[in-house]
């Protein structure tokens, strides 16, 4: 989260953002970024697969699937 957050928060609300608010915002930021990554094109590929010509020259219908997600606490 850019350090300007405190100045902007202060100018809007007239007080500093608490640690709890910053924690919340960091979490929101991470979710917003995942929202950018999982776009409509990806959702379509997820549901219906996507036809790709592989390096071996064979066409396959590929379904992307998520298996693991290992991350630090997003609020940190």
């Amino acid at each position: 989260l850019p350090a300007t957050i405190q100045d902007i928060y202060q100018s809007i609300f007239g007080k500093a953002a608490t640690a709890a608010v910053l924690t919340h915002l960091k979490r929101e930021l991470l979710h917003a970024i995942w929202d950018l990554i999982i776009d409509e094109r990806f959702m379509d590929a997820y549901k219906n697969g996507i036809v790709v010509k592989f390096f071996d020259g064979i066409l396959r219908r590929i379904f992307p699937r998520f298996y693991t997600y290992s991350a630090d606490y997003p609020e940190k």
Partner: protein
Amino acid sequence: MGANTTAEQKNPYTPFLNASSYRMVDWHYNSSETKSIADLDRLAKDVIGAPDFNPADVKFFNAATELKRMDDYLDEPGFSEADGWKERSVKLRLPADGKRHASEDHAPAFEVSGVWVRDLTQLVISACEDRSALNLHTVPFELKFKASEDGEPEDVISELYNSQAMNSDYREVLTKSAELGCELEPGILALQFWSDATTLANFGTAALWPIYLYFANLSKYIRGKPTSFSGQHLAYIPSVSGHYCETMAYLMRIPD
């Protein structure tokens, strides 16, 4: 950025114009400060003796120009649009104690810019088209072990592409593919994500917060080798500075 994308695709030696110039600069920087006998051997073998070294290429070679080329290149942002990177910004709604808004959309917003993300669908496609796709297991299978001749076979837990999870997903994928009336071989591209803050230096606050992924279709024995370059960067989250840094910056009124 993006202006020299086409040139970059054609010339793997970017920012140098050709392999010969690259080899000369590489030799200059990767030799010991006082040239040794080994360095001289390397000059003969890796520079002049390299199959792609062409004396005509370096007819107008000027060291200062070549070094400047490298400096300028390093000043450019490191995210190339050719690799599918896009710069985006996101809006976060700000909450405050005791403040009420008609809805979340009415709350004041804080815009975070400089969020770099990559097109995940494109990454999936590129992974399949690449030479390394020859090693991908897009169809899972079961691997069993029998302790004795008449023993019960048990699952061997080794790779994701012989896990129960991927096998059961594959049964769903087969059904979906049949529904679509698709005659192509269906496959799964197994994504595994990681995200952790990395500190870039032992001093200062230079830090990155990336989201990256690996394809579990690739054996862990290949994936685990740093030299296989199988990790893929997906997004960079701006400034991960902790509460401490932010609060300090605010209290000390350090301008950004």
